[in-house]
């Protein structure tokens, strides 16, 4: 084996990709796209308040309609006035002090002598667009009947959720009053306790809280994307050499093993370059000051930081992950004649690489659970699960060491088997080989 031959191939693989405009477009598009899908909707929502007019016909006789009007005006006011609390988890439950999608204008009516005519008239108003919806509070609502809600569309779950929440609050107060209990006293006594989550120093590497969580998930998906994308690049690269018959010239100059290793290392380096650019972007964006000025995140939320140790772990895990999958892709690319044939078998790799995505929620919730530990030690999952665990909570050193040993052993095994398949397959043309044949190449060739 000649290292200089490997290096020449590596250089070609690396430069031919990095010099390509497409690489830079893809590399820059990902952060832009990510920013677009996360930041834009938030900006749009916060900037675009709509107002909805809802007509309420109150037949309860207890002033539920008026109470709702007051209640909704009040929550809107407190939401606007309430400063963001330090470390607050942004709540998804609208109507609980968070900014609302819409301002509601409630218009109350008393039930008319002819309810049918009143209903028809209200329907007409909604149809004409003079009101967005109308509601009917029957006398039984204070017991257990539902409130009627009539609107042009009934899939506006967020609006309905808001209304349901506020109306429940109103009705509860009326019920309490009827039972002779002071609602204000009741509220005082049943107040929720908030959890102020803080990470124990020295256990983790991220800033904790939501920011740390988002950071872990972003890391996970960047690695996932890189391994999948660049692994497949290895396959298409091998297929190209086979298809254009460049391979015969190459094989007459260097050994198949040198060629395969050069290709794997070159493309691995391209993937690392891209990851470095992405992580660099993350570092710049999360640098103190920048985020605050951009004001995308609530003030005072501690941003996760990338330590040197964490970055080294990430780099090693990426290399191992890339090799675990790319060796397979190289063997598949070498065995088949075109992309269609190869893709069918290559989907086996996708199954393994997608599996960690399925359990990401469980791992985030308990990164030290038996399942999380087991999966992070399985060589095909280690490169994705381990970074996720590291980002959330640093695993014990022995687990990390064991994972490295297992994955490295696995990767060496993959290189050995796949280079044997590659060596034979790369010069096979014509008939599509069966899996049994490919298996034979690995062991008997």
């Amino acid at each position, binding site marked *: 084996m*000649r290292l*200089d*031959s490997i290096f*020449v*191939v590596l*250089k*070609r693989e690396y430069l*031919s990709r990095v010099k390509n405009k497409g690489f830079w477009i893809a590399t820059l598009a990902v952060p832009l796209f990510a920013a677009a899908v996360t930041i834009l909707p938030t900006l749009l929502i916060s900037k675009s308040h709509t107002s909805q007019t809802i007509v309420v016909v109150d037949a309860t006789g207890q002033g539920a309609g008026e109470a709702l009007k007051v209640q909704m005006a009040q929550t809107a006011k407190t939401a606007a006035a309430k400063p963001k609390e330090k470390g607050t988890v942004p709540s998804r439950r609208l109507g609980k002090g968070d900014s609302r999608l819409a301002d509601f204008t409630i218009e109350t009516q008393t039930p008319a002598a002819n309810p049918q005519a009143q209903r028809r008239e209200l329907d007409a108003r909604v149809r004409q667009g003079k009101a967005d919806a109308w509601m009917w509070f029957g006398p039984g609502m204070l017991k257990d009947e539902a409130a009627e809600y009539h609107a042009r569309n009934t899939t506006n779950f967020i609006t309905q959720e808001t209304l349901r929440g506020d109306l429940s609050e109103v009705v509860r107060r009326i019920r309490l009053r009827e039972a002779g209990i002071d609602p204000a006293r009741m509220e005082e006594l049943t107040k929720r306790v908030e959890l102020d989550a803080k990470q124990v120093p020295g256990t983790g590497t991220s800033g904790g809280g939501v920011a740390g969580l988002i950071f872990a998930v972003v890391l996970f998906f960047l690695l996932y994307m890189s391994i999948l994308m660049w692994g497949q690049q290895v396959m298409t690269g091998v297929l*190209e*050499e086979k298809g*254009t*018959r*460049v*391979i*015969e*010239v*190459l*094989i*007459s*100059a*260097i*050994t198949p093993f040198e060629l395969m290793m050069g290709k794997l290392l070159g493309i691995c380096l391209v993937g690392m370059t891209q990851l470095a650019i992405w992580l660099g972007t993350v570092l710049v964006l999360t640098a103190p000051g920048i985020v605050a000025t951009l004001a995308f995140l609530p003030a005072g939320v501690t941003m996760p930081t990338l330590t040197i140790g964490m970055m080294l772990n990430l780099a090693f895990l990426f290399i191992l992950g890339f090799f675990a999958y790319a060796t397979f892709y190289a063997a598949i690319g070498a065995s088949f004649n075109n992309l269609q044939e190869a893709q069918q078998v290559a989907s086996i790799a996708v199954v393994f690489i997608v599996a960690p995505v399925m359990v990401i929620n469980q791992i985030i919730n308990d990164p030290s659970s038996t399942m999380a530990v087991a999966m992070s030690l399985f060589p095909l999952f280690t490169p994705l699960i381990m970074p996720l665990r590291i980002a959330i909570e640093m695993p014990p050193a022995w687990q990390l060491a064991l994972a490295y040993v297992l994955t490295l052993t696995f990767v060496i095994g993959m290189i050995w088997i796949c280079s044997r398949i590659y060596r034979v397959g790369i*010069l096979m043309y014509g008939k599509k080989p069966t899996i049994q044949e490919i298996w034979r190449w690995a062991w008997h060739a």
Partner: protein
Amino acid sequence: MNPILEVRDVRKSYGDFVAVGGVSMSVPPGSIFGLLGPNGAGKTSTIRMIMNITAPDTGEILVFGRPRTPNDLRRIGYLPEERGLYRKMTVMDQLLFLGEIRGMKRAALVPEIDRWLGRVELAKWSGSKIEELSKGMQQKVQLIGTVLHKPDLLILDEPFSGLDPINQELFRELLQDYRSQGKSVVLSTHGMELAERMCDHICLISNGRAVLDGNLKEIKHRLGGNSFRVIAEGDLDRLRAMPEVEQATIQNNDEIKLMLRPDADGAETLRQMIGFLKVREFRSEEPELEQIFMKAVRDAA
């Protein structure tokens, strides 16, 4: 002189199909060696075994006097039958790459590449991508890639296919230059005329077997002692029926290529021919390779 390349009774079968059924050949240094034969004779299969792309079932291949080692790769230049270059790479980058994988240094390569590109009139294409070039141009680039590292042995599979006569001539000159530096060229072709014009040694392959092998001049001398050019009119069928006649082919109108059996006497045959033909010319001649080839194939069958 020790041969640069020696192939000893090499055989290769794919299932029941015998691609190469016993080929031996010996390539002396400083020669152009032609591997000849019709399509499907086993030329490419033989070359692929020489290049270690496939392994022979039996037999032995010696390069530079010993079984080949991976380091020998750098002393060999190979042009495969199916040409291939990276489509998206520029001519310069491509050639630099092909030189570098054979251990050459970039600084030494650039002037060498420029010199070659100038010689094949591709200088102004050096920055163009391969996919922008015509097939003929691509072939020239690939040939440069084959000789850049100044190999001691060039192995070219059908180097002339797809080239126009001007470029064929250019290739021929390049190869003869190469030979004059004491290096060897093995080329396969099914074009007998071309082979005849440039090869010193030949190996004729038919149906996977070497039917003739040796120095072209010697072969011609050995097999062509009884070849004649005849200009005559009359009953040619009767001529072909004569026991002394090995082969009689009509060239244009009344010109006949006549090959007699090795033991036949030319003068005696002429005397008999005069009896039924109006002979205007009867001249002893070197046989054409094609005639030799066809005879060898017939004898082997």
